[in-house]
């Protein structure tokens, strides 16, 4: 390991530990805000694991999230909560594997289009099953977990995602992925199994998103398809991750904080304008910040680590 890597790991550990202290220091508004930020940090980082190196824009986030939420809703009466989080992850991974196997062998556009409607499709199917087969619309998740507990779970998950991302970056899998991202043809000639590599990574990303959904299930208390499969979430994740930049594992962090604050503010004060904000954000990213904030800063400074977003993890 290089020295800078050890420093980076130490910094990440300190930040995570500091974040874990938060529920003991504050509650109410700031904790809720921190929880919202933590959700998107987890989702965006998990998203970047796959979409960063492959440049494939996945809009399946909401679908995996909802699947994780439902895993908890179905199992809450039988299994302890931590085990259910694993189930949520498993469900997300399984779902991602199926989707990946069907679409990742083909050109990138098909994948984007397919994931675009995936959340809506899953919502329709679950809504149909619930009303027609099981006869009730929603499911209750009653636990005594407070927002603080959920926040701690999320901090743990974020740590896990970063650790996984870091390990993948050092492994053969990560190397293969970078080659694929740069030139798929070259990767194929090297003997890299392109489709399989992508599917594995998509499953890893889906697992983490499913786990995030599972952790959040007690917060909703009443799980129904409309809330669990919210397509806007997929777009928010894409915007935040790209805004921050996907070249580095921590890049999305830089996008999450400002955009969560902005979208909270807009949806609280101008609920009719949220779509316009999302649209402008997309256009702004494409035309002004194609490499995200971190990419732009890096270009500006040409010096690695100069823009480490300390303090953004909370």
């Amino acid at each position, binding site marked *: 390991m290089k020295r800078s890597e050890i420093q980076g790991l130490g910094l990440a550990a300190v930040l995570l530990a500091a974040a874990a202290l938060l529920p003991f220091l504050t509650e109410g508004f700031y904790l809720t805000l921190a929880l919202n930020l933590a959700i998107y940090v987890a989702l965006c980082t998990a998203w970047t694991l796959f979409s960063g190196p492959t*440049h494939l*824009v996945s809009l399946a986030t909401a679908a995996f999230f909802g699947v994780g939420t439902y895993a908890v809703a179905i199992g809450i009466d039988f299994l302890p909560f931590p085990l259910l989080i694993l189930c949520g992850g498993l469900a997300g991974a399984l779902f991602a594997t199926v989707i990946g196997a*069907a*679409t990742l062998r*083909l*050109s*990138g*556009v*098909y994948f*984007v*289009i*397919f994931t*675009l*409607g995936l959340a*809506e*499709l899953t919502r*329709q*199917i679950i*809504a*149909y099953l619930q009303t*027609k087969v099981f006869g009730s619309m929603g499911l209750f998740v009653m636990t005594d977990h407070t927002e603080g507990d959920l926040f701690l779970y999320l901090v743990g998950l974020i740590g896990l995602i970063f650790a996984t991302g870091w390990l993948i970056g050092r492994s053969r899998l990560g190397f293969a992925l970078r080659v694929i991202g740069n030139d798929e043809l070259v990767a194929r000639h090297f003997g890299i199994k392109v489709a399989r590599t992508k599917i594995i990574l998509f499953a890893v990303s889906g697992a983490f998103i499913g786990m995030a959904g599972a952790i959040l299930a007690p917060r909703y208390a009443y799980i129904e398809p409309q809330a669990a499969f919210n*397509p806007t979430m997929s*777009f928010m994740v*894409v915007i935040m991750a*790209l805004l921050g930049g996907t070249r580095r594992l921590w890049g999305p962090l830089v996008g999450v904080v400002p955009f969560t604050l902005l979208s909270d503010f807009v949806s609280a004060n101008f609920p*009719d*304008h*949220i*779509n*316009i*904000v*999302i*649209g*402008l*954000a*997309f*256009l*702004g*990213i*494409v*035309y002004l910040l*194609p490499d995200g904030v971190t990419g732009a800063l890096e270009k500006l400074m040409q010096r690695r680590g100069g823009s480490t977003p300390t303090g953004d993890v909370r």
Partner: protein
Amino acid sequence: MEILVTGLLLGGTYALIALGLTLQYGVARMMNLSTGETLVAGCFAAWLLFTVAGINPIFGLLVVAPLGFVLNGMIYLGLLRPLVNRAKNAGMLEVDSILATFGLLFLFEGVMQLAFGGSFFNYQFLAVPFQLLGSSYAMNRIVAFAAAAVIAGLLCLFLYRTRFGTAVRAVAVDPQAARLVGINVNLVAAFAFALGGAITACGGALLSTFYTFTATMGAVFTMKALIIVIMGGVGDVRGAVVAALILGIMETLVASLIDPGLTLAATYGLFIAVLLFRPQGIFGGKAG
């Protein structure tokens, strides 16, 4: 039988929407995800013309089509051409155009939501029964289908019988080779994008005569258009028409026999089947 005919009539309008997109994606190489918003704009334009000015939606097409043409041409030249120029490779252009048109999708949806609100719109145009093969159908659906067929026919005439139309098809097959034989590829691409927008807007105007529409339904129609285009084979006019009719019938079948809430699931089922078994489109040819 009734289901088949209703589905076929619906498919006629879908075909126009998909033809618009297949021109934009197949010729201009722009995956325009905001195509659904062009459609919704077409709906609202026809609705405004009918309710405010009392103009028959069929004649309204004469207004809607040029508007769609100019607007989409402006989008292409103003927003998308710079992306083409800066892209280092096809992959980058693909990602950029997807993100940019997502932006447009949300932006237009937001603007139309502000302008018209989130409620449902429809208006009464030719809502009289029409006897066909022993059962009755709404006259407006028949008229919309006929108008769609005429527009699609005109498009085919243009593409297959005129010199400029041949140039458009040449660019769809191979932009580089087209440039070698002296075709102005930039001009053709911009023209095809604008024309595609005009056709989509016409599809919207026709759809509004029999369909209840809202400012927020654009994304769903983008999905449908994309699926039809992929099913038919990118840039393949014939395939798009057949695929649109299949989709229309399929949706109507599922909605009337199983559950109206599952139409998207039906669309997706079809999509998955196509991706798994015929990713190059119904009529094959080149891989997308």
